[in-house]
């Protein structure tokens, strides 16, 4: 009897405690609800409402006009290119930093972070100074005599990709570095001890064990790239239209928010689908591994 009462009491107190713990994240949850879920809900709502009530006009427009498909394609292909480049550049960098002594590693991470703390606009304009027709790079190569005509580096997709890559790179390097750093070095030593060359140890031990960090970093970079506005606007010279730019355009050329919110919503849905798709694959892999 006494034991039964105790269990009931303990369970009650556990429930109470759980409720109290729930109160802790409440402010954050409420804030998220207010600044994220409510506006997205409103976006969803207005995209289906026209002057005469319910309408699919904002969605049929996107389906009927091939321009929108082109914009979505541009947005995703730029984001994928940037994600791949970020992995190719960021992985070796993160790995190299992780092998450095603490002091040197701190300095290197600082160097990764400094541009991260600089305004996005400033960095974008800095690239313009470097890449434009009479910019530093063209001037230098013209002076060397390597080229006779300035190269078109800015105001196109090339310039946009470089500018965006520079901005997103820290978002890949940091989680990647954390993943590599938290890896138990004994695994690598064990591999060496068993006769694996450093290259083999890298591919068969380090890479598989740091995949979660790589995916986290790559997803961060990819999703962040999808929403770019300022950099393609400035470095694209009008040739590169990404979804965010079209959203802004639609908000001004049509008399209502619906035309803009439908496009924003489509981007959000595709992004979420990709996000959950990747997560699903990862989870299955991890499950299979056990």
């Amino acid at each position, binding site marked *: 009897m006494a034991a039964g009462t105790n269990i009931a009491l303990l369970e009650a107190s556990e429930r109470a405690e759980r409720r109290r713990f729930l109160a802790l994240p409440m402010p954050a949850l409420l804030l998220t609800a207010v600044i994220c879920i409510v506006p997205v809900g409103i976006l969803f709502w207005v995209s289906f409402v026209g002057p005469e009530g319910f309408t699919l006009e904002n969605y049929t427009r996107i389906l009927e006009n091939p321009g929108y498909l082109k914009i979505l394609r541009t947005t995703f292909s730029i984001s994928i290119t940037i994600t791949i480049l970020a992995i190719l550049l960021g992985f070796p960098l993160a790995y190299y930093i992780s092998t450095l002594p603490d002091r040197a590693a701190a300095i290197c991470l600082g160097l990764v972070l400094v541009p991260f703390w600089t305004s996005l606009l400033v960095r974008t304009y800095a690239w313009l100074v470097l890449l*434009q*027709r009479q910019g530093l790079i063209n001037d230098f190569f013209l002076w060397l005599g390597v080229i006779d005509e300035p190269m078109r580096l800015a*105001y196109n*997709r090339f310039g946009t990709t470089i500018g965006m890559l520079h901005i997103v790179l820290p978002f890949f390097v940091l989680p990647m570095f954390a993943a590599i750093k938290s890896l138990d070095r004994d695994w690598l030593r064990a591999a060496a001890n068993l006769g694996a060359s450093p290259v083999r140890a890298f591919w068969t031990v380090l890479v598989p064990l740091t995949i979660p960090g790589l995916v986290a970093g790559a997803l961060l970079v990819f999703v962040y790239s999808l929403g770019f506005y300022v950099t393609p606007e400035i470095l694209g*010279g*009008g*040739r590169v239209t990404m979804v965010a730019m079209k959203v802004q355009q639609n*908000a001004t050329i049509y008399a209502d928010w619906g035309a803009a919110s439908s496009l924003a919503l489509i981007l959000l849905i595709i992004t979420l689908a990709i996000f959950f798709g990747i997560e699903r694959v990862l989870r299955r892999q991890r499950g299979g591994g056990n």
Partner: protein
Amino acid sequence: MNSGSSKQGIWKFGAPAAAVVALLSGGALAADSLTIANYGGSYGEAMSKAIWQPTAAELGIEIKEDSLNSLADIRAQVTANAVQWDVGELTVDECAQGAREGLFEPLDYDVIKPRGYDQAALQPTYILDNTASYVVGWSTKKFGADGPQTWAEFWDVEKFPGTRGMRNSPAQNLEAALIADGVPLDKLYPLDVDRAFKKLEEIKPHIAVWWTSGAQSAQLVKDGEVDMIGIWSNRMQAVIDDGAEAQYTYQGGLLIPDCFFIPKGSTKVDLAMKAIAVAASPEIHANIAQYIPISPVSSEAFNTGKIPPERAKLLPASPENLKVQVWTDGDWWAEHGAEVQERWSNFIQE
């Protein structure tokens, strides 16, 4: 168009009359205030010094200034029945759009008594005020004084090899393309959209930059990024005043005026009407040209003695320059803007 004497008459009695009305309406004079809204920034500052402060002084009221981004701001206030601005200023296509949507109060031209304005400048719910022009500009470093003098020459890539820039918008560029294709200025509207886009396809490979903001266009000229450019005259003049090696011509320029209106539901319509009357009077209206290279649209403003002839030469709406340019048809753009804009964004992508 009005005689000089009536001009004097109004302005002798206008201010005291306003003061009397203000007193009769009950409030203390100091309590009378208006809020105006325009694009702000350096333009807003110039408008404040040139137009709104003198207007406030003339009427003996306080004028507060706010800034807006587009017609959407007006629409939001009017539809929410929460109008905070008594006088607004936007570009002509947005004014025409606002008028179509019924977002403005009707203007009373018996109160405003406009002088020197074209009939087209005086719309039922808005009145044109200042104007800039979309013109052909070129680098004098590259071409000296002999840059492209018309849109047709701007399109002539053999006679004028080099990089080009244009505004990333169908507005003004469709007109420019049609003028380049030989359409006379007075036959421009309604625009032949297909013909314009066909002509634009020709120049597209030679456009290095499609600029999106006035500031960006100025930077392109300053940095020598483009050898030729379709650009707003006020930006070009400012950059030349700043020492850039560039020149431009008003030949075939597209005049893009701003306009004043009273948002529907303003609680101070009568006072706002009087403020517009003062702001649009040639004497005050002429002030703007002293601050920025923007042109008053009233021809009488050029007769006030406030605009020296050498300054007038640089202004888009001076009687001399007007002869070789054409006014943007705001109504056409209000009607076709969205559809043409969609076509433009398909055209511009590679």
